[in-house]
Each structure stands twice: as C-alpha cells, then as structure tokens.
C-alpha cells in the first residue's frame, strides 16, 4: 500500500542525482529490498511505472535486488540463510540467532549514459 510513496522517494533520489550529471541520462536505478523490509516488489514496480509514465523519466528501469534474511549464530558464528522462519543455527542448534541482513531498503546504484 505504501509502495507508491517508496517509488516516489526513489524517483526523487534519481532526480537529485541527475542534477549532478547534466551531460548524461540516468537509464537504470537499482534498489536492494530485503524480505523483512515490508515492501512488495511487484507493487513497487507497478507504482514506479505509474509515476514515470508520460514524464521525462518514462523508460527509466527500476531494477530490484531481493535480499534474503541471513542469520548469524552468536555461539559458533555460522551465517545461514533463514528459511521457513526457522532461526535455529543449523550447525550448533542455538535457537537465538541474530539477523544480519534482510531488512534493507536501499538504493544501490544508478547507471548513467554519458
């Protein structure tokens, strides 16, 4: 439901970045969306298409990299991809492990045609 606002924030960042590259044209923006970020990728793509449509930004590609949830065990330091909401360490069996990635909602980079 809030993906349209998030799409707008992405476009705003692109517009700001474009001011720094007056000679070029930004053709792609890549964002990293963690599975815990609360953002639906399809809704984000749809929202983004809607806001660039019939503007000078039509055709700008939004590329989404989905980031899985990764846990780290505080006992044996094993890092593992958390599947099916099972936080238990597969190596030593510790139940309380720490999330080290998966809640990202970041703009990674943009591609500029010079």
């Amino acid at each position, binding site marked *: *439901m*809030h993906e349209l606002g998030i799409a707008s*924030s992405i476009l705003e960042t692109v517009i700001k970045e474009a001011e720094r590259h007056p000679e070029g044209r930004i053709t792609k923006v890549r964002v990293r969306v963690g599975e815990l970020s*609360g953002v639906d990728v399809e809704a984000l793509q749809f929202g983004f298409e809607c806001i660039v449509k019939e503007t000078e930004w039509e055709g700008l590609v939004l590329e989404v990299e989905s980031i899985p949830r990764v846990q780290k065990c505080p006992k044996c330091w094993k890092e593992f991809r958390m599947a099916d*909401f*099972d*936080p238990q360490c597969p190596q030593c069996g510790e139940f309380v492990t720490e999330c080290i990635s998966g809640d990202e909602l970041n703009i990674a980079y*943009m*591609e500029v045609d010079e």
Partner: protein
Amino acid sequence: MSRVEVEKKVLNENQMVAEQLRKRYRQSGLLCINLISAPGSGKTLLLEKTLERIDKSVRVAVLTGDLQTENDAQRLAKFGFPVKQIVTGGTCHLDARMVEKHLVDWNLDELDLLIVENVGNLVCPSSYDLGEDAKIVLLSTTEGEDKPLKYPSIFFKSELMVLTKIDLLPYVPFKADVAKENARRVHPRMEILEVSSTTGEGLDVWMNWLEARRKTKQTVR
C-alpha cells in the same frame, strides 16, 4: 555507460527527520513508543487504560493517527493529558515528518513519555522510522496465530509484542502458545506480554514494562 554508486536508504529523507526526533527525545530524556497493530486489535483501548492507570506525575502526551476522524483524540483527551490527532487523509502509515509537524506546540523538555498510536496497519508502518525508542506491536486473540509469519517485518522490528483481548481466549480458537512461538520464530529476542484491557489482567505488567523502559531512558540521558 557509467555506474554511480549511491548506497543510501530509499527513505533517506524520513530517516533524517527520524534521527533529528530521536536526538531531541534523547536530549529531553523523553521515551517515545510507537504502537502498531491491525485495525481493531485494541490500541486505543490499551492507551485509555494506560492513561487511566499511569502515575499522574508522569508527563505524557499522545499522538494518534488515523485516516479520518478525530474520534480517537476525543476518546483519549478525557484523561487530561495533551492529545493530538494526526489525520493522514488516506495515507496508510505515519511518517517522521507528520510526527515532527504535530509536535510543534509541545515543549519536549516538559514531557516524560510520548505515545504514538500508528494507523491500524501491520504492513506500511514497519517501513517508517518515527524516531521512537521502541516499536510495540499488538496482536489480539481474535486474529490468526500466524500473523507474525504473515507480516514478519513489523514483528521483526518491534521490541515488544502485546497479546491483547486475552479474556476472550476461552471463546476463540486462538492458541496463545502458537502465536508466541510464531513471533519468536520471526524475532527470537522479542519480549511478549499478555493483557486484557477489559478485565485488567496483565495491565500491571504492561505498566511496569513501560515504567522500567522510561526510567532507563531518563538515566541514559
């Protein structure tokens, strides 16, 4: 073609405002909590019971968010604490800018506790940092036990889960143990409290949690 590394948060603007708010709260020794749940889980009733029971020496203020109406602010104003309604006009969550805007008339140095009641929604509020010290998620016994698994983001980001309407447990199929286990699968370190705002069961524990959290905040000032 060249690549420009950006590596910043999509909600960078919101994040900056949230960090400013967090800094102001810290300087004032004020605890800010952000209450989040689905519509109808009992946020406003829990707030009413909290304001009714809280030590009158604690200076509390409340911001309550809804898409429309001032109903909640009216419900909460009768306890004599300052209350402001944030009408989002359709937006499904509160953002840091809305909070900042509604704080302008209050001197934060004269407050000890700021309670923000978010818009009833388990999805969107999870993406917006409001500068709060703790997000608190409510889950009621008339919902599904699998909600933590269906909406992991908010359960992951909340420090505490308050299981509400526990007076209804004998009448509903809801299994509290399963709900708690699901919450801890998403967030192993999550604290969990059980309350009934109707019978008062568990409210003392909730009030103690709040008071302990508030005292910690004042000492780290």
